[in-house]
Each structure stands twice: as structure tokens, then as C-alpha cells.
């Protein structure tokens, strides 16, 4: 059995310029922020980011690493509009691919199933379909003849996800109420890097239905306690509203934020984050 464990400092070496990188979680919930910081430290550029976006997308826009963002939304949940993403959009520095949420799900599922596209009604008649030349319609070959959206597969070079626990072989456990689409991200990627609050020898005694990421779709495991912070990783910790406000206010002063909280190792982040918590 190959050893999938990686140390935080080994992660940046996995990234290359121009990659398509899918990031799990949803808005400000269970985002693999420790892995996003590793991606920031790598300094690779020209990335296509695929995400139900939050601060992951915002930070990669602020660093200039994201050339294109494919998303259903980019939001901090309690702060409806992600400020760094919005700034990049207004400045015109990224290529924006606005997909309806369920279209993005279909694209990931098509890639996970090794299909060229998935048929869906999601997006029908909207600009997410009609103004995107990469998305075609298809007519049902059956008697109904319905015109449907042929959502193309979204194939990922790398997927980043964060779970509550991993075993040493790379199986992942999620304890929160919603897996979101992390399993599809993992299955749609050539390489999946999974961080976990803790890595344990075995998950055999855990409720089966919480074991939701199979090791056959996981290439690397990184142990990262608070690895989703400041986003929510329920039931362990909620979204950090005070930190989010400070982050949102860092538009225009990105370097000061980045030098403490983004372009840093996970251990450096945790020290700065603890200090922020004590001060606020």
C-alpha cells in the first residue's frame, strides 16, 4: 500500500501553471483552506478554478493566480457577495463562467462517470446556457423530442477537499449534515488531495453512512486540524464571522492580509488565527 500521507510543505509541489483545479465545500462551508493556502504558496498561475465558491475563489483572484473561474456562485454566506471575487470581476482580470449550480453538479458528475456530457434541464433558457458557446443543446432521441441542456463534463486536473477524518489509506469521513458535492469533485479529478481534521488508523467503528469519500478517489492525505477555518466545519466549528468581516475588509490591502493569513504555512496560519481570535 502506497503511503498517501503528505506534510503541508510537500503540497505546493503538486501544482502546475494552467491547471484546472476543483475545490470542494460550498460558499463558506467546509472549504479546504489549508490546501488553498498551499496552492497560494506554490505561486502557480493561469489556473481555472471550479467551485461553489467562497473565500477560496476570492483569495485566488486576489493573488492573481485564477485566470478563469467556473462557479454557480461566489459568496461568504453571511456576506452575500465575495469582495475579492467581485473586485476581480469589476476590474476584468478573470474570465468568468457563470453556471447554474445544478449545471455545475451535472458537469462534475459527467466527468466522474467518464461521460462527455450529462443531460439536464438545469439552466434551460438562461444566459448560463445561451451565452456560453461551450454549452450545447441536445434533442431527446425518444418520442418526446424534448430540447435539453447537454452539460459538458468538467474534468479536473486536481481536486481539493476537506473532511473531518481520514484513515491512513485515504478513506474520508464527513460528520456534518451536507457532503455538498465533494465526492464528485474527487471522482472528476486526476489527482485528489484531501485534508482532514485528523488522520486515524481506522474508521471501521464509525457509522457507515458517514464514510463518504472512498480511497480509490484520493491520491494524497494531509492532516490539518482547523483545515477549513475560517469556514464552517460542522459539528467541529462554525463559520468565523469576525474573521470573515476582517477578510472582506482586506480588499485594497491584500498584501497585509496575505502575509499573515494566506501566503503562509498551515502552522503559521494557525498561530496568526489564534492571535486574531484572542484579539477580537
Amino acid at each position, binding site marked *: 500500500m502506497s503511503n498517501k500521507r503528505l506534510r503541508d510543505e510537500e503540497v505546493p509541489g503538486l501544482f502546475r501553471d494552467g491547471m484546472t483545479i476543483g475545490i470542494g465545500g460550498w460558499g463558506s462551508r467546509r472549504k479546504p483552506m489549508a490546501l488553498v493556502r498551499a496552492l497560494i504558496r506554490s505561486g502557480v498561475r493561469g489556473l481555472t478554478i471550479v467551485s461553489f465558491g467562497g473565500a477560496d475563489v476570492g483569495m485566488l483572484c486576489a493573488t492573481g493566480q485564477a485566470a478563469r473561474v467556473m462557479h454557480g456562485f461566489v459568496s461568504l*454566506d453571511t456576506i452575500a457577495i465575495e469582495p475579492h*471575487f467581485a473586485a476581480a470581476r*469589476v476590474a476584468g482580470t478573470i474570465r*468568468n463562467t457563470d453556471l447554474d449550480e445544478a*449545471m455545475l453538479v451535472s458537469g462534475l458528475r459527467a466527468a466522474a462517470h467518464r461521460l462527455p456530457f450529462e443531460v439536464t434541464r438545469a439552466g434551460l433558457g438562461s444566459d448560463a446556457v445561451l451565452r456560453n458557446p461551450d454549452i450545447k443543446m441536445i434533442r431527446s432521441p425518444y418520442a418526446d423530442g424534448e*430540447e435539453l441542456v447537454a452539460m459538458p463534463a468538467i474534468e479536473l486536473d486536481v481536486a481539493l477537499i476537506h473532511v473531518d477524518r481520514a484513515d491512513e489509506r485515504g478513506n474520508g469521513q464527513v460528520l456534518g*449534515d451536507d*457532503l455538498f458535492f465533494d465526492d464528485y469533485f474527487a471522482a472528476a479529478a486526476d489527482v485528489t488531495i484531501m485534508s482532514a481534521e485528523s488522520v486515524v488508523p481506522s474508521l471501521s467503528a464509525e457509522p457507515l453512512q458517514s464514510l463518504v469519500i472512498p480511497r480509490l478517489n484520493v491520491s494524497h492525505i494531509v492532516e490539518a486540524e482547523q483545515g477549513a477555518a475560517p469556514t*464552517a466545519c460542522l459539528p467541529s466549528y462554525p463559520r468565523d464571522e469576525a474573521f470573515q468581516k476582517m477578510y472582506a475588509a482586506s480588499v485594497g490591502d491584500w498584501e497585509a492580509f496575505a502575509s499573515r493569513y494566506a501566503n503562509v504555512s498551515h502552522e503559521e496560519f494557525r498561530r496568526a488565527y489564534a492571535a486574531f481570535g484572542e484579539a477580537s
Partner: protein
Amino acid sequence: MTLSSDVTGGSDVTAGAEATAGADVTDVSDVADVLDVTRAEVCAVAISDLFVGAGEILASPTGLVPQLGARLARLTHAPELMLSDGEATMFADTPAIDEPFTEPEHYLPYRALFDLIARGKRHVVMGGSQLDQYGNHNFSAIGNWQRPSHQLLGARAAATNTANHAVSYWIPRHAPRVFVPAVDTVCGAGSVRLADARFADLRRVVTNLAVLDFSGPGGTMALVSVHPGVSVAEVAAATGFDLHIADEVPTTRLPTAGELALIRERLDPRDARYREVPR
């Protein structure tokens, strides 16, 4: 789909028990005193009426008044409605709109929600930054598509909704900047774009001034009713395109005394509704 906030903590056993006890708490013959009723309450009842005959579906109201209206519907004429916290759970209890649900009845992570949407068993009340005369909707971005002046929410699942099940809109400030001749980008699709869509079901637009639908010529927006104290001219002036207006425009109905009691004493005793539609 909505931007939702976490609902945590608290308990309200009484509200749950009342909700399961049944819905016949309103005497529909009993009409409230017009002078006493606020605009927010008229709006809540107009939202509630969106769910007449809805049956066993998920109601997904976005905003305070829509939440009030959907819960009012469940406590009166639509006891079979299902309600969620906008996260991963559907709930059987019907608490006040500023209190957490406490009685889970079903698991609804996003994946299950998208499956439910595809099944069509849902009526969503969405907000929007722009709506045009065909009901094309935008809350993604204002201005140029690739380089907007204002980034908003993104596509979310508006166009999954409009392709699959009943969709209504709630606009708490009826104004020309919302009701525009053409939206900058189409998130939720309107009547013409959905003309051949098998399961599209575009219903109504409820605003702080009026109730509208798409029964006008060629699927255009038409005035269904004006709220008490609002003139047809006022609605027309607040709309940035020509509305279809019949010769006789009725007034939106008032809440019954029973509905008013539910709104004021049970579902919104701390007056959250006035944050959206001031007195």
C-alpha cells in the same frame, strides 16, 4: 436556491405541537379592519395565496415576508406544505420567522434538493435585482457580462428552478431600477425563453405595491391587483416598461382576522416583517 444563514440552537416545543395539531385556525369569513392592516401584512397574505392548492411540495421562500407568507399558508390553507431551513433539513414545526425550527422531518442536503427540484415538487419565491416584462430575472451581475459594474450573487440555481417547477418572485421595493426593459444577464428564464420548456411554471410577482403575473399579450407582465392604498398609476410609474393593465384592477385582499392574529401573535411577534416593508 437561497443564500441562507445557519439556524442554530433554541427550542420551541409549543410551536411544533401547534403545527402538527392541524391548520384550521382561520375563520375565512372574518375580515380584518382595513385601517389596522399594514402593507407588510397584505404582502404576507399575497405570498400565502401563492400556495393555494399546492399540496405536498417544498415551499422555498426567500426573504422575511415570503417566509412569513409560506408559514402562514402552512398554518391555514396549505397544511401539507414542507419547509426547510435552507440547509440540510426539512422541518415539521412552524415557528416564528426569527426563531429556529426544532422538529426535523426529513434529510435534505443540496444533492437531495436538486433531485427534488428535478422532480418538480417545489415552489420557490426568489428575490431579484432586475426583472423584465417577460419575467427574465437577474441577480448575477449588473452591467457588462464579462466586466460588470457590480458583481452580485452569480447564477445560483435560478435557472434550475425556472426549468423545473413553480417560481414566483418577491420584490420588496417596486421601482424602475428593478423592473427594467431588459435585464443585463438572464438567471431565471422568463415566459418567452421558457415557451417550449416542458415543466416551466412561472407564477406571480409580489411586490410592496402590487401582485403581477405573466398573463399579458405574448407572456408579458400584467397587473393582477394593487395593494390597498396603492393606485394603478403609482404601480405603472414604478415599473420601467409598459405593464398590461386591465380596465378594472382589483385590490389585493386583506388578511382575515385569523390570519392577522397568526401573523402578529404567532409567526412574527417581534415585527421582523417591517424591516423589509416598513409601516
